[in-house]
């Protein structure tokens, strides 16, 4: 069933002043309430796509259209580093977006406490970032993103710097949040297994020039758990994605 996409990228090009083609004729549809992963090697432009959607930076040409039927367009962004304000407590960090949007103090505090509870950090409101582990800092970053109850969550390799155990726990927590809060998630990663575990659609990208080479629908049911991770279906999808990734780099080595 294809609904109207909430975001459409049409023929997007981005060329840096030194001639590097970050994105070339990129076309991409994002369906509402989907979990889309962008997978590709370094330099393929996947972070650039995310930043352009968020309004950070300008396209050289092309268009990013936002649906008028799905008017749920509130954005939130989670960076690769937690990017917390080290001089502020967890609570103050999480309520920052609400403060910037001039919400009332009681609204700020209740929404922030709610978000902190959602990511499982209840009790840590008055701690400072330096007192937290890497995984906890990332949870705070996610709580901050969720504080404004966004519709679209953009995540740029958020779990890349974490250990396997924490990453796996956060993957499951993220899927729960996606389900509970009716989000549309666009998730950038270089980890094929993570992409296949989390998403319902994997977009494979290649570099030089940055472009989409394949889109693979992951037809596995939610909720997903360890059984899925060890199933034949999972392995098949991982193989497909890996093949597509390898094809693209093979093209590159033949051409050069």
């Amino acid at each position, binding site marked *: 069933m294809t609904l109207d996409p909430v975001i459409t990228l049409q023929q997007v090009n981005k060329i840096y002043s030194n001639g590097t083609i970050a994105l070339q004729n990129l076309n991409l549809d994002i369906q509402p309430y989907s979990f889309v992963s962008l997978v590709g090697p370094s330099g393929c432009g996947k972070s650039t796509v995310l930043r352009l959607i968020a309004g950070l930076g300008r396209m050289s040409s092309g268009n990013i259209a936002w649906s008028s039927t799905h008017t749920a367009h509130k954005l939130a*962004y989670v960076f690769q580093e937690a990017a917390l304000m*080290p001089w502020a407590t967890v609570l103050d960090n999480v309520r920052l977006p609400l403060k*910037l949007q001039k919400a009332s103090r009681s609204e700020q505090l209740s929404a922030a406490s709610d978000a902190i509870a959602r990511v499982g950090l209840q009790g840590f409101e008055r701690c400072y970032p330096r007192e937290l582990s890497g995984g906890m800092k990332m949870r705070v970053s996610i709580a901050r993103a969720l504080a404004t109850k966004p519709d679209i969550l953009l995540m740029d390799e958020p779990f890349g710097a974490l250990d396997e155990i924490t990453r796996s726990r956060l993957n499951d927590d993220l899927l729960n949040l996606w389900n509970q809060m009716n989000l549309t998630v666009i998730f950038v990663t270089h980890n094929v297994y993570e992409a296949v575990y989390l998403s319902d659609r994997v977009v494979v990208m290649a570099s030089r020039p940055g472009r989409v080479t394949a889109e693979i629908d992951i037809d596995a049911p939610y909720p997903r758990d360890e059984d899925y991770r060890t199933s034949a279906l999972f392995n098949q999808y991982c193989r497909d994605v890996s093949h597509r990734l390898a094809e693209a780099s093979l093209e590159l080595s033949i051409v050069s």
Partner: protein
Amino acid sequence: MDIQQVTPLKRRIQSRPRVSSAQLLRRITSIEVIAPVIVGIVLLLTWEILVRITNTPPYLLPGPLLIGQTLIKDWGELLPSLLITLKITIAAFTAAIVLGVLVAILFVQSKWIERSFFPYAVLLQTTPIVAVAPLIILWLKNNTFAALVICAWIVAFFPIVSNTVMGLNSTDHNLLNLFQIYRASRWQTLFYMRLPNAMPYFLSGLRISGGLSLIGAVVAEFVAGTGGTESGLAYQILMAGYNLQIPRMFASLFLIALSGIAIFVLLTVLSNALLKNWHESAVRREN
């Protein structure tokens, strides 16, 4: 499957003990405070012994004991002078802080403003007070106090501007992007991110500037050679020099040194208090 709750270690994190008077006493008598005091006492003893052994006359190099006696004897004249010098220092320091921060904020608003005006801020730093002080005092004939404050301000201004600009510009680019995504106004970015981020740099500039304000105040008065009732420690030094009251001169110098140390210690304590929650320079760790 529920989101797994991270268990807070309530005892370790949530209870932040207030510093008790017993802890304060322990900190004052700690090795960090005792060690330099012991070094100071040893140096003073060595000085006194050397002066006595070599029979150096007091008009060449008085021993610390004689200086101490002079300090107590002339306290009635030295104290008002000390207060005048401190008044000039504090006025100049305050002006340097207020104007320094405002100018730094201005510079950060636009690259062109910074490029156009920064060299002139540097000019202030390189201006020799020794040459300029008499001129300024002449221009402000009726208000010597203001003239001295301006001279001290010239010396103290630049470190605050330079360090604060550095701090305001050294923001985490991810945080900047975050503010952009939420469409924060220029002022919100300044108040909620740039200024708190600049705090360690600003405090570092403060510590440099505090001492310079004192030096500026003393040098300005020294060079101007002002007399009369509104006279600071530099005047005392000059007069003691003319009258060959060398122990009194040393007593004045000692008061200046003590003031300098006190200013530095106060600013360091302030810096640590403001940064103790988050900045590496002030955080207490186990190792």
